[in-house]
């Protein structure tokens, strides 16, 4: 199905911290079609400082009482000009959203377990994935790491869905001190090979570490990558990542259309 270009209105802007916010965008049609792991290309309408759109995972699909999508949200962390503008956005502002785009996660079902691993803003694709997994009745755990306890968001949401939470912070203010891959590695030691699907999203060094841990414990692993993207449609060849299929030579593939979700074992990390 072709992506839609929706001139969405900002319905709400929830600032979660000095850097993070959640924008609610009136792009119901995109919400209806989105599968967990897919993204939208976003651009504040009328913004003149930048030209290109930016990719964002669809964070939540907001539904009415009968379950029909009425909006999507995106989880934003300010880092550059567009993300600053999105942090400052006011209700009523317009934001162009193109999507849904990209290859989604493959949701597993019991007896397999689903373990999601999020680092910082890498939490973004896991709210919709957790919903899909909950609907399928798959036992699900979220390993979630951030700089500090103040940057661990949405814990109630995952709790309500019955997701087991394992937390880690760099400063030790909540959960285990250090990297989230440490508790992941320990927990996997007691799992039978092939019993646990690992999903990861976050900074690339974390993704590489998760893929290594998953491989060592013989578990399947899907990672969602974020590379500098130009168009989101496969037109520009900017967002490439090196991937090796089976015995073939490694090659650059476009993460917008061959990803952003990849088999973690196939990526050749820098």
């Amino acid at each position, binding site marked *: 199905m072709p992506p839609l270009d929706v001139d969405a209105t900002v319905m709400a802007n929830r600032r979660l911290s000095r850097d993070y916010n959640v924008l609610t965008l009136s792009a119901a049609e995109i919400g209806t079609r989105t599968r967990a792991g897919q993204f939208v290309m976003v651009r504040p309408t009328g913004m003149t400082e930048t030209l*290109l*759109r930016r990719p964002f995972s669809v964070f939540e699909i907001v539904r009415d009482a009968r379950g029909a999508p009425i909006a999507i949200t995106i989880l934003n962390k300010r880092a550059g000009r567009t993300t600053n503008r999105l942090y400052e956005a006011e209700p009523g502002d317009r934001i162009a959203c193109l999507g849904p785009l990209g290859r989604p996660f493959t949701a597993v079902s019991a007896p397999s377990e689903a373990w999601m691993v999020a680092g910082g803003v890498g939490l973004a694709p896991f709210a919709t994935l957790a919903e899909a997994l909950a609907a399928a009745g798959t036992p699900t755990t979220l390993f979630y790491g951030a700089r500090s306890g103040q940057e661990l968001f949405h814990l109630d949401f995952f709790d309500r869905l019955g997701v087991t939470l394992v937390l880690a912070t760099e400063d030790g203010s909540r959960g285990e001190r250090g990297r989230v891959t440490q508790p992941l590695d320990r927990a996997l030691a007691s799992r039978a090979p092939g019993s646990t699907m690992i999903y990861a999203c976050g900074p690339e060094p974390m993704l590489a570490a998760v893929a290594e841990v998953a491989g060592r414990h013989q578990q399947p692993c899907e990672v969602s990558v974020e*590379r500098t993207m130009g168009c989101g449609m496969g037109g520009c060849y900017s967002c490439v*990542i090196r991937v090796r299929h089976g015995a073939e030579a490694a090659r*650059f593939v476009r993460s917008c*259309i061959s990803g952003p979700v990849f088999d973690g074992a196939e990526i050749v990390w820098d």
Partner: protein
Amino acid sequence: MARDLSVRIGSLELPNPLIAASGCFGYGLEYDEVVDLSALGGVCVKGLFMTEREGHPPPRIVETPAGMINAIGLQGIGVHRFVREKLPLLRERGARVFVNVCGTTVDEYVEVSKVLSQAAGVSALELNISCPNIKEGGIQFGCSLMGTSAVVSAVRKATHLPIIPKLTPNVTDVASFARAAEDAGADAVSLVNTFLAMAIDVETRRPTITNVLGGLSGPAIRPIAVRMVWECAQDVKIPIIGMGGITNARDTLEFLLAGATAVQIGTANFVDPFVWSKVLAGLEDYLERHGIDRLSDLIGAFDPTPPTAVHA
């Protein structure tokens, strides 16, 4: 009344002047779901060599004011795979296929052109003698009048297809290159390719893209591109395909008035893949407002009479 948007490039009749720019539209099929490929004037596919190329390591692009710098490094599947895997599908969709031909030597341009000439479904060859992002070939030919002539005349002997050398703006006198191309047997010229550019990350004091240097495109370059098209239009008789920063009908008309017969849109397609129908509607609207039946009547219709002073 429906207005006539068709234009002619030599023997090629296009339903409208909008062509997807090379490197900005994949192999065309990526956009199959959002654009009716047969409704475009043409689709110019990503540059092709004889063999596959892997391109530069990412990051490959950086955004700059009103534009972007890219150094993709001509990642591509090579001409043989293109002919096998992509061309039949493009043909099925009724696309008028322009192929951006690359080479590291004159012989490679000739070989790639021969392969494409024997395949069914190619409308024209755009000779990429202007890519700023590769070490050998490309822009080396486009920055020397002799190199330009050498590539164009060699390919001329090897194909019956229309050939359209794509000129670089990274020269002092672009019109002399258009002339050299015309003299060597080109059917048209296209311009501009990107401007060699650079952006530094001042926080890290390092390059923003792996290749350090890249090509600047987007609205930032448009006024320079318009000027270059106008200079060429005064110097050559063959049709000109103009490009550089086109985002809408107004921008398109600027190039046509300066003397371009058709245009290409690149960077703007990244921002809005639905740009094509919007530009076409804008062109229709312009003709309507000005009571003009045929868009082609506007080619080169720029009137150099000084503007009337507007006093505040």
